[in-house]
Structures are given as structure tokens and as C-alpha cells.
């Protein structure tokens, strides 16, 4: 599936929820299901430091595809990470380079990705974009 198709799928999934609490319940479920990353990536070198939520991030470019290792102390943040990974994991950088993560607005949770909300999701999205840009420019 293309990143766009996956985003549309996520938007559809969220349409069945009646309120924010149901959405968060789903995110927590996704967060619980997300496989933890290798401990070697859970160090300060890979830390995206938020004021409140620490998130660890690492990316690699293997066989022309992007591989991400992302984890967080917050289950809700992990839920969001799970959605981002569904879109970006194992994709070619050029396929996600120009992806506008419009699903964030469509599922009504833009506030969680605000630069003013210091929970590291904003920084995380920027990291993904900057790595994808780098690999699409330099590793062809």
C-alpha cells in the first residue's frame, strides 16, 4: 500500500469513534501492541527529549527502504508512533518524502502534534521528515 492509501485507511478506522476518549482508548491499545525497540536504542543518543515524555528514535536505510526504531514511555504517544510507522515503515524514502501527514487533521488530533505541546510528537515527525529527505537525496 502507498503511504496515502494507509493514511486513508487510518482515517476510516477513526471514523467509527464517537468521541476523543474512544480514540485515545484505541491509541492506548495500539501503544500496548507496539513492539518495544532494542534496548541499545534506548539511550540518550537516540532520545527525543520532551519536557514530559521521553521518546527514542533511530532510522536506517536498508535495501532502498526506510527502517524506523521508535519507542516512548507514553502509551498514548506509542499509539501515535504505531500510526506513523504504519505509514512510513519499510517505504522508499522518495515515497514518503512528500507525504503530508494529513491523517493527523482528519482524525481530529492535530493538537497532539503541536510544537507547543511538549510531548515530542512534533519533533518526531520533523525527525522522520528530515531523515527521509536526507536518504532520498544522498543514498540513491
Amino acid at each position, binding site marked *: 500500500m502507498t503511504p496515502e492509501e494507509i493514511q486513508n485507511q487510518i482515517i476510516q478506522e477513526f471514523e467509527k469513534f464517537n468521541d*476523543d*476518549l474512544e480514540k*485515545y*482508548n484505541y491509541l*492506548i491499545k495500539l501503544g500496548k501492541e507496539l513492539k518495544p525497540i532494542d534496548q541499545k536504542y534506548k539511550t540518550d543518543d537516540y532520545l527525543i527529549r520532551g*519536557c*514530559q*515524555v*521521553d521518546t527514542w528514535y533511530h532510522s536506517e536505510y536498508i535495501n532502498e527502504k526506510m527502517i524506523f526504531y521508535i519507542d516512548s*514511555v*507514553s*502509551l*498514548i*504517544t506509542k499509539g501515535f508512533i504505531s500510526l506513523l510507522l504504519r505509514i512510513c515503515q519499510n517505504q522508499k524514502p522518495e515515497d514518503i518524502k512528500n507525504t503530508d501527514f494529513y491523517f493527523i487533521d482528519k482524525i481530529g488530533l492535530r493538537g497532539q502534534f503541536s510544537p507547543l505541546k511538549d*510531548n515530542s510528537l512534533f519533533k518526531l515527525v520533523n525527525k522522520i521528515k528530515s531523515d527521509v529527505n536526507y536518504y532520498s537525496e544522498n543514498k540513491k
Partner: protein
Amino acid sequence: MNSFFDIKKIRDDFPILSRKIYDKPLVYFDNGATTQKPKIVIDTINELYSEYNSNVHRGVHYLSDKMTEKYEIAREKIKNFLNAESNSEIIFTKGTTDSINAVAFSFGEKYIKEGDEIIISEMEHHSNIVPWQMLCQRKKSILKIIPFNDKGELELEEYKKLITPKTKIVSIVHTSNSLGTVNPVKEIIDIAHKNNIPVLIDGTQAIQHRKIDVKDLDCDFYCFSGHKIYGPNGIGILYGKEKWLQELPPYQGGGDMIDRVTFEKTIYAELPFKFEAGTPNYIGAIGLSIAIDYLNNIGMENIYNYEKQLLEYGLEKILKIDGLKLYGLAKDRACIFSFLLNNIPAYDTGMLLDKMGIAIRTGHHCTHPIWDHYKIEGSARASLSFYNTFEEIDYFCETLKQIKKMFE
């Protein structure tokens, strides 16, 4: 509750309390961060800007006279509220942080030299740590720390042991913003004074909850912020005994704090103006005095008694929630509940409470050393005020149980 305390009427005085958040009635439990403003304060600020705005002091015109008069009446009201000796002891600042920085700088310049010691505690807000650390770096002096026990009570025996002939000042929080502990400041001051050491009290989280009498406490400095006591932002108070304020050099230079300036030298103004460089926040100061009028009308004792009931009710309810760990179980405490729910990250708890219309704070609350003591990153903190209700505590506890289930 006695007839002086009409909770419905009180809530009606605060316009924001009737608004809805995500279609749910706002439950504002983040009073430790800032308090809401009664309509009389909001209206006064509006009126001052609309009808009276003019810079204070030395103006020759009607508006400047009027504003100066109101500004100085505000000082008088705050003097009375604290039971200070004179208006000269009341300095308007930007807030507690500004007040502590002022003392740390001015006192440090005058009295601290290499090897001298300053005592603070393990439960200080960063604003009562960093200014002293900066001073210690400047002067090569030493910061000594009174520890607290796991209940969140200061170890007074350890405090006594920390005092040496080199101790020059003690600076202690009255009520911990993270644990709710009300420290025995009178005893702490008494111990210091027996050793001829002055004491600064950070009253940020105490002033709005109980009657403060600086003469009775006999503290040398007392600091608080206007916005935490139902007043405007950007205004604060530094109370200092006149003998200290006379001796200390000003920490900022500029207009309004001078008597005469030549290129050779400057003669400073009398107290309290010596410490108020630049155009003061006169509207903030007057707004603060109106907030204090409002509290005086209700009565600080009534506020204290009502909040005590909220605390007891809240404690009983919250401690019954299975898996909830409360941080701060001191005997004397304010209505602040710092907790972790079943090891759910505090941020997640706070975010879900928010979706239910409940405003709390999560994180370290600017007290890293407190959480280092407990070996955790921080907590979820509900901090209540006299406009909160027993029903809100019920809703809060039920919501916490619901959140707990979501993570099981």
C-alpha cells in the same frame, strides 16, 4: 460550612469556571500553576486601562496623580494583608522568581564571600535553587541542602546540623508546590535566628491558602506571586524587613529608583522605590490588591477551613483508588495531590483527564530534586482552591478509575 462561605456565589464570581471544555464542565485543578481571576479583578484591570491609565510617580497631571494614589494604596493593602511594619517593606516585583533573584543578588553582593554557606531544602522549586546556585558560582560559596523524609517532611535535626558559623542565609519554601507539604517555617526561622542567620520564605503556594503574618513568623524576607493568589500575572511581592532592605544594594538600576543621577555617581531613592527600577507594573499591583480585598471579604480563615475540608475529603477518596500512589503525606499539608496512577505515565493521565474537562498538571513541576528523591520522573498533580467542590473531587476520582481501566 458556615454561612460566610457560599460556594455557589463564590463560583459565580469567577467567570471562567462556568465555561465548558470539550463539551464538559471545566474542573480546574491546576491552581498550583495559576489561579483563576474573580470578575472584580478582571473588571478593575479593564477600568484602569479604560479610565485611568497613566504612568505613576512625578506626573503633574490628574491621571498620573490618580494612578499613583491607587498604586500606593495597593502597597498599603498588601502591607496590611501581610501584617508588615511599613509600606517601605513591600517591594513590587515581577513575581516570586524575581523576588528571590533580587535577594540572592543583593544579599549576595553585600554579605556573601568565598566559603560562605547558604541553606535551602531538597523540596525547593527551581526558583529557590537556581538563583542561589548562581550566587554560589559567582562568590565561590557553598549550597547546603536540608533533606526530607519519604512522607515529604523536612528533617529538622539535619537542618540544625547544617548550620555553621559560615551560614549566611536560609531560604525555604513555605508550602511545596509538588508535595503540598506545609513546612514548619516558624520553627525553621527561630532556629536560624538563634544563630543570627536571616531567613527568606518562598510563600508562593502558601499565601493563597492561609493567613500569613510576617511579624508573627518573624521572617526576614517573604515572597509570592500575584497570579497564584487570584491576581494578575507579572506582579509579585518581595517583603523584606526594613533593616535589611535599607542595607542591601539595589539589584537593578534605572528610572524611578534614583534620587539624583550624575555621571560621577547616583544617589538611590528611598525605600521601597530603591528596588523598583523602571516603570512598575502598576496595573498589576492594583489588580493584586483588588484580589486581596476579595479574599479579605471572604476571610482567609474561612478559605483555610473550607480547603481543609476539601483536602480531607479528597485524601479519603483518592487513597481508596487501587493502584494510586500519592507523593507527599506530610502531617501539615495544602490541598495538593501529587500522584501516579498504576504506573501509567503522568502525561497520559493528564491528557485523558483533560479530555474529560479536568485540568491538572503533569511532569516535574519545576522540582527535579523532589522526583530524584523518589526516583521517578514526575507526577500528575491536582491542586485545589476554595472555588473547587466536593462534587468535582467525586468526578475526578471516578474519571481516574475510568482511566485506570483503559490501561489495564
